[in-house]
């Protein structure tokens, strides 16, 4: 069973991504703020973190930094999910330590494939 932590403040997005991942058999955790997300990640040590960048309180970059800084969960696979959708966001996020990058709006059929590819790549490391 793969455990995925979704850090997302928007209900609709949370419902959508949860729905898609649940159908694939993922065990799900969800947090609505960055702080709560980091806390949950430290506590449950998920296999995958799906991270929204624009969050109330600390933003996605800060969450990523804290996860990477931790000894316990530093190597967790993190996929950023943002509607910035601008050239540079992808590069910035990847260089900040993200394993993958999903653009909003989510393409329901493509998103699972994208997540799986990133996970496979991460396991090969």
């Amino acid at each position, binding site marked *: 069973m793969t455990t995925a932590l979704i850090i997302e403040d928007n209900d*609709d997005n949370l419902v959508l991504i949860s729905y898609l991942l649940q159908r694939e058999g993922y065990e799900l955790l969800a947090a609505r703020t960055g702080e709560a997300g980091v806390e949950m990640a430290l506590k449950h040590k998920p296999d995958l973190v799906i991270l929204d960048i624009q969050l109330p309180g600390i933003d996605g970059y800060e969450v990523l930094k804290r996860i990477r800084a931790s000894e316990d969960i530093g190597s967790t696979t993190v996929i950023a999910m943002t509607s910035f959708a601008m050239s540079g966001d992808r590069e910035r996020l990847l260089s900040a330590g993200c394993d993958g990058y999903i653009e*909003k*709006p989510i393409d329901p059929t493509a998103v699972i494939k994208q997540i799986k590819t990133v996970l496979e790549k991460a396991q090969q490391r």
Partner: protein
Amino acid sequence: MEFRNLKPKIILSLLVIVVAVLFVSELFHYSETKKSLSIELESLADQKITRMKQEYVFPLWEVDGNWVQQDINTEMMDKRLYAIAVRGEGGILVGAMRNKQWQVVVATEAIAGDFITRESDIVYKDEKIGSIKIYITKRFMRESLTYQVRRALLTTISLSVLMLIFMTIMFNKIIVNPIRSMLDTTTAIADGDYSHHLQIEQKDEVGLLAAGINRMLDNIRLREEERDRAESELTVKKAALEQVNKELYEHRAHLEEEVAERTDELNKANQQLQELDKLKSMFIASMSHELRTPLNSIIGFTGITLEGITGEINETQRDQLQRVYRAAKHLLSLINDVIDISKVEAGRTDVFPSQFTLQEIVDEAVGNIQPMAERKSLFLHLQIPEATVFLFTDRQRLLQCLINLMSNAVKFTENGGITITASETDDAVKITVSDTGIGIKDADLPRLFEAFERLESHMRIKAGGTGLGLYLTNKICTTLLHGSVSVESVPDQGSSFTLQLPKRLEAHDVQA
């Protein structure tokens, strides 16, 4: 001797000459007189002796001593005769002479002194009967001469004095006074006073000189006047210039103040603008998020429903949901384009160059529009160099531009298809997207790259799109990728858009 004045010098010289001339002439006159007096006395002597020697013949012959004595006495009335002595052979001795008081006395003593003498024999019938001797004194000749000398001296002196007076007057009048006044005038000229005018009416050299000085004075005065006029003009102009200068200076000072004020205002305005710009960017960023978040839900949930993931839907539901889905996608691309343009225009777009190949980027773009082209049964031809062409530029942006041009081509083409041609030079690539679509009228070409310029055509409604695609493509290509977009088109035959851009985006081209 040295004279400080001209007059005595000249007058003295003239006087010397006059005196000398007069003296010489008097001397000549004296000697002439002396000579003529001598001749007169000599001729007197000759005359007397000639007469006496004839007249005394008979008295002597008859030995009439008394007659002779009487005649001698008569003769002696001429005081020039000093002595007469007559000697007769018959023993007569008659004579007369003068004493110291010049009285006639009987000749008693021998006669000595400087006299003109004449001696003659008295002859009767070739026989000497006596002799006669007369003595004529030079005394009166000397007196006459002395008198003459005195008179000449007097004449000389009085003439000299007269001449002196005359010459002085003349000199004063003709030379000295004019020269004096000329001297005064020239001294005044030397001292810078040009107000004099010489009143000399002579026609001689002095007059000419004075006239020359007057002419010179006139010229100088004329020049002085001109100079004064020029100077006063200059002064006026200088004053005016100073005034202008002052005004300029004040104006400049004022201007500097104004410039400083304006600069201040501009700085403030600039600051405000920067704040506004920041606000605008923040607004756009939040718009981007706030507008897209609900769209994400719409697109996401419509998407999974359409996919049938959540259960079967009927055809009507599918058709209607598809309309929702397309409208939401359109809205999303519109928002994305507006945000992109805002960012590019604000210079807030980061450029991220990376290395990739021409082939892969064209393939990706083609892959993107392929489904759409297939749905419209359009052909897709690629004419790309076989050799790998490496590019180092912003991949995402180039892809965006290519997809934009290709999807435009598909949108505006109903029959035929799309041809993508690429070529390279040493440092640039050229990618051309040609279609066999509706084309663009020449008149519409200039507006083609402007925002929200969707050309009037029957395709307009059908084609969809934001109307921002070409504008954004052009902006990205020129501003971010340092390339260019050009277009050629024949209405009803097709259009061909060409992207031209450097292979390598140098570090300094990339905006911070």
